[in-house]
């Protein structure tokens, strides 16, 4: 009886219910808009865009441009986190892929496409390593990927022989810094990667299986879903994304810096996935919202820099705002809020 009544009320209040259902998705988006709004008030001209020689310029474009490497890495991270895992090695993989790109460009006659393929291949190998440790040897993801996080930078240093290797290549330079149809090329690359991933995840059953395995591996096994290969492929994908990001970062500075390329980027990527609403205990994967999460982090960084706040406050202010966003998103807070909301509804009804 009770449930029947619920069904009826649902039908009547469907617009409100729709809002309620997507409440989770709204939180990061509203957070991003709020941060943009506040920054625009503090820093005049923040939202201003100029068109010069068919290229868009402005703080917003700068955010997109700088956010690209993190966005690509976060995409892979979101998938891995969905399987109840984590990939700490992405920063190191960025260094490896950058090193491969630089060394091959300088030392060989390989065409650019082959260099890029080799760099991506190095990322896939790293992903394979992580995936095997996690899914075949059942090592906890945080430990398994920690190995490559530490060793990876060493490998990158071995590839560059401890030097910062600079290179010149028009194509790579274009990937790093040039524009196409008003936007930076790397933004287009990231956009394409995000869209392709979303299509593969949602238009095949891959996303469903990954989420099912992440949320309840025992139940998934009993319906015949083989978790091992799925988890392995998630780490492969994360390695691929990190390598892609490594190519862009190397192209950006026209060189490979094994010590600093992608340093601490894994933490931003994890944070972005969490801001999107993902649980580190696995389950739902939010790809588009993870990109919103990256934009929140990048907007904060850029906004604090342009606001004229003394540089030493940057990190603390950033942390405080992110904490606020996470608090708003936490189930506990949401429960409190929805209780308040419901009370008001009762009165109005």
């Amino acid at each position, binding site marked *: 009886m009770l*449930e*029947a009544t*619920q*069904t009826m009320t*649902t039908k009547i209040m469907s617009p409100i219910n729709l809002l309620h*259902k997507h409440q989770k998705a709204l939180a990061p988006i509203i957070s991003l808009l709020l941060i943009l709004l506040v920054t625009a008030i503090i820093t005049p001209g923040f939202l201003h865009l100029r068109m010069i020689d068919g290229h868009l310029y402005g703080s917003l474009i700068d955010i997109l441009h700088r956010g690209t490497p993190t966005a690509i890495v976060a995409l892979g991270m979101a998938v891995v986190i969905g399987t109840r895992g984590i990939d700490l090695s992405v920063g190191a993989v960025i260094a490896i892929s950058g090193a491969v790109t630089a060394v091959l460009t300088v030392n060989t006659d390989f065409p650019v496409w082959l260099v890029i393929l080799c760099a991506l291949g190095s990322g896939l190998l790293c992903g394979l390593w992580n995936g095997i440790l996690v899914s075949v040897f059942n090592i906890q993801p945080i430990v398994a990927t920690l190995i490559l996080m530490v060793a990876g930078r060493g490998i990158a240093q071995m590839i560059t022989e401890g030097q910062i290797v600079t290179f010149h290549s028009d194509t790579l330079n274009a990937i790093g810094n040039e524009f196409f149809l008003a936007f930076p090329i790397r933004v287009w690359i990231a956009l394409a990667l995000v869209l392709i991933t979303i299509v593969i995840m949602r*238009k*095949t*059953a*891959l996303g*469903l*299986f990954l*989420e*099912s395995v992440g*949320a*309840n591996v*025992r*139940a*998934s*096994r*009993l*319906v*015949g*879903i*083989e978790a091992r290969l799925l988890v392995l492929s998630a780490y492969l994908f994360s390695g691929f994304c990190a390598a892609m990001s490594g190519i862009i970062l190397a192209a950006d500075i026209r060189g490979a810096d094994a010590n600093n390329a992608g340093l601490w980027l894994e933490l931003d990527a994890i944070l972005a996935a969490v801001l999107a609403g993902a649980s580190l205990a696995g*389950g*739902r994967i939010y790809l588009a919202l993870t990109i919103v999460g990256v934009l929140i982090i990048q907007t904060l960084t850029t906004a604090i820099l342009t606001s004229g706040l003394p540089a030493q406050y940057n990190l603390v202010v950033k942390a405080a705002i992110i904490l606020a966003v996470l608090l708003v998103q936490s189930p506990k807070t949401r429960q409190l809020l929805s209780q308040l909301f419901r009370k008001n509804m009762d009165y109005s009804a």
Partner: protein
Amino acid sequence: MDLRAGEIRALLGENGAGKSTFIKVLTGVYERDQGTIHLDGQIIQAQDSGHAQRLGISTVYQEVNLIPSMSVTENLTLQQQDKTFGLISWKKAQKRAMALLAKVGLDIDPSKQLDSYSIAIQQLIAIARALSNDAKLLILDEPTASLDAGEIQQLFSLMKQLKEDGLGIIFVTHFLDQVYSITDSITVLRNGESIGTFDTAQLPRAELISHMVGKSLDDLAPASGQNRSQQPLETLLTIKNLGKQRFLQPIDLNIHAGEVVGLAGLLGSGRTEVCELAYGATKADQGETTLKGHVLTQGSLRSAIRTGMGYCPEDRKQDGIVAELSVRENMILALQASRGWWSPIPMVKQKELVEEMIKRLAIKTPDMDKPIGELSGGNQQKVILARWLITHPDLLILDEPTRGIDIGAHHEIIQIIQELCAQGMGLLVASSELEELVVFAHRVVVMKDRHKIAELDGEQVSEHAILQSIAS
């Protein structure tokens, strides 16, 4: 309830009878709200399990609650370290550990890691630790569940020795044979109430079982009178000599199309084990399963599912639902898994299938995109049933399909079982509720102590007959 020193008492009862609550009150995990506990003539009130142990009540749980990665010595002396000048003296600790192990008749190297020893030895080590603080009352909660026959004998001789030393022992178990071979007296609990305490030697099995299930054999009609002899169409499933060590004694079983085979037995008798081995959820180490003429690959669930099997596990929360996913996603999961990830079921088709199932099974949910974790138990169970019905299985294995759901849904699920059977599906249904089994089962396989002890057919199926075979 009184327990004398030097007495071994069995504590018996079905699921939810209150055994674990009773133990938890005794050991101070739960606060009692009435009554008193006397130990050696003194009223005691344990604040927590540590306090209970200091008072002389020690418990050994079914799952060994020692720390596998620590050495035997560390495990034995964890609660009470041997110190010299305020620092732990491992020499003293080792000595005390050896002394404790000697008490339970173990001669092993205590410096080795605990998990390098077998479960049986670990169990004895757990008892040694329980005895470490001059226990007067020892509670053993299903200590024999994962032991083999020889190990059980070893445990029993230890129990007899402890009994002679004047210890009172409360022995919780599901194995009636063990009750009769070791205990002096029996206390039966049912639905949170004490039914009574009996002398083991003077309580016939049949009477004990009727106390446990709350039905007297005399009250039950010898046969239910329902005539269900019918011509089975074809043999669907043949299980030959299927078994696994320490899990299930080899079993033979046939299921025909259009037939419901019930699995009866007390808690821990092996009902669930039969379901798990038949489906392949647990890999058997001997025997084979044939479905529709195909021999199934042991341990390959996909081959079982593709050949036409479905399985609703006993533990719905752990093994059934994927709580965060929606009703729709949960429902299509098995079908999608058998098609593979590259061949998604079109969304329109998904909605159609789910809509149809929601209607057919009367699943109460505001919409199909609600996370399944937010539905009631009965509706969750129906979604899991629907998950398999969508795959059009020939054989469905249901382990306790009506556990933990309300009366209305309970009735509906029984109806669904009968309908499916009428449509020609074969079903294997394990249930602890005899009155429900005899309603829908054409045949009943009775399990006891992980053996198949009887198979009742057609007119023989009755609560009376089932209880009688368990008792014999």
